[in-house]
């Protein structure tokens, strides 16, 4: 009796996991593509924000404030339905995926931009003056001196954002893009059990555990200077 129960449990867990696997790929894809686009884009946004050209810096400031001041879910809806309501463009099936990546990247770029900005501003004035005296060009100054120190300054904040991103990938359900959490909810409803949600929770936790571990390694790597 007990044995049969255990076998039944194991089988169901196995079936749930294999069903969730189809969504895991989608979640990972959202995660990595968002980082791939938002990390560099955030740097451009930060430059715009710090620009001496007032109209640009104000425009970027507005963008950051809107992105940070409204729900990501709402932003995803706007990116997905916007083209249709604004221009009457019929969306193609693939656009659902693009909308997720565009929405996430624009959102995270705004957060990363503010992190970069604080990291850049934390580089002492004396570093800029030393570069000036040594004759570095602005590009040399940025890449040789400011950027490495910025990276060290911002790693803890970036870790926070990346961990949030892992969990935020579940918001793609807002525009019916099927990632892992969507699958988990479907399976839970179909089979009347909360086990899939529990398994999903374990997945996010393990994912973030790996992220935290990797970031900690990176922080240690940057400890070669102070």
């Amino acid at each position, binding site marked *: 009796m007990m044995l049969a129960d255990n076998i039944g449990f194991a089988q169901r867990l196995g079936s749930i996991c294999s069903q969730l696997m189809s969504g895991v790929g989608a979640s990972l894809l959202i995660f990595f593509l968002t980082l791939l686009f938002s990390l560099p884009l955030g740097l451009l946004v930060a430059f715009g924000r710090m620009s001496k050209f007032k109209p640009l810096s104000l425009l970027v400031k507005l963008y950051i404030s809107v992105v940070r001041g409204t729900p990501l879910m709402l932003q995803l809806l706007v990116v997905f339905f916007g083209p249709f309501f604004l221009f009457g463009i019929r969306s193609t099936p693939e656009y659902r995926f693009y909308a997720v990546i565009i929405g996430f990247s624009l959102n995270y770029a705004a957060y990363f931009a503010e992190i970069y900005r604080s990291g850049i501003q934390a580089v*002492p004035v*004396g*570093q800029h*003056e*030393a570069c*000036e*005296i*040594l*004759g*570095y060009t602005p590009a*040399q100054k940025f890449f*040789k*001196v400011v950027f*490495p*120190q910025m990276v*060290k300054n911002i790693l803890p904040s970036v870790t926070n954002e990346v961990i949030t991103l892992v969990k935020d990938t579940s918001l793609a359900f807002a525009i019916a893009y099927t990632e892992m959490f969507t699958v988990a909810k479907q399976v839970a409803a179909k089979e009347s059990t909360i086990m899939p949600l529990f398994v999903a929770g374990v997945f996010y936790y393990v994912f973030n555990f790996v992220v935290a571990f990797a970031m900690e390694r990176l922080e240690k790597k940057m400890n*070669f*200077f*102070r």
Partner: protein
Amino acid sequence: MKLLEIKNLRKRFDELEVLKDISLDVEEGQVVSVLGPSGSGKSTLLRCMSMLEKADGGTMTYCGKTAMSEKDGKSVFADKKTLKEIKSYYSLVFQNFNLFPHYTVLKNICDAPIHVMKRDKDEVIKEGRALLEKMGLSDKADYYPYQLSGGQQQRVAIARALNMKPRMLFFDEPTSALDPELTAEILKVLKELAAEKMTMMIVTHEIAFARSISDHVIFMDGGVIVEQGSPADVIDSPSNERTKAFLKKLEQ
């Protein structure tokens, strides 16, 4: 030969007039010390001279090339190419070193000569090592700045400036961030440079040092040069009341 010629230099920060009509010359091989109470504008003078700060008026000429002149009451700077040339004539050593924390000692002193002056890498490194040897730091080439004492960091900063092969060096209170025993090691390095006829302008509070090393002493107060001349004149028998008061205060 005059390496530096400053005439009627003026600088204000909003309402505050920090430099009022400063004129001075530095001859090749000369060591000029700048004394004066805190807030008198010594740093601002060095920062205007090294163009970290933009002066409001006056003229600045380096090795016969004019970097800044005045037209209709406004400062006019030379073209980019001339300024770049002029900037290679001098270097500035900061009070708090401003070494690059993420570069090793050797990279700190070799990176700019290689990537700014575009000099041969092997040659720069060879000369960089020789400079470290001279500064008594040959075993520290692969250290990072945080692993060094303040005095060692300042010696690296001096080596970094020297490796750019400037014709003159400016120092802004190079020992003020250091303990007395570390101050001594920097003053020793400056004396060696003076013996080699390096042209230097040094802002300092070390009066005894200034007396022994300088060919010329400038005393500043309230944004003007109150008195200047030989160390014997300015330090030993000052004629101005403010100079006397300042020196007396330092003695106590």
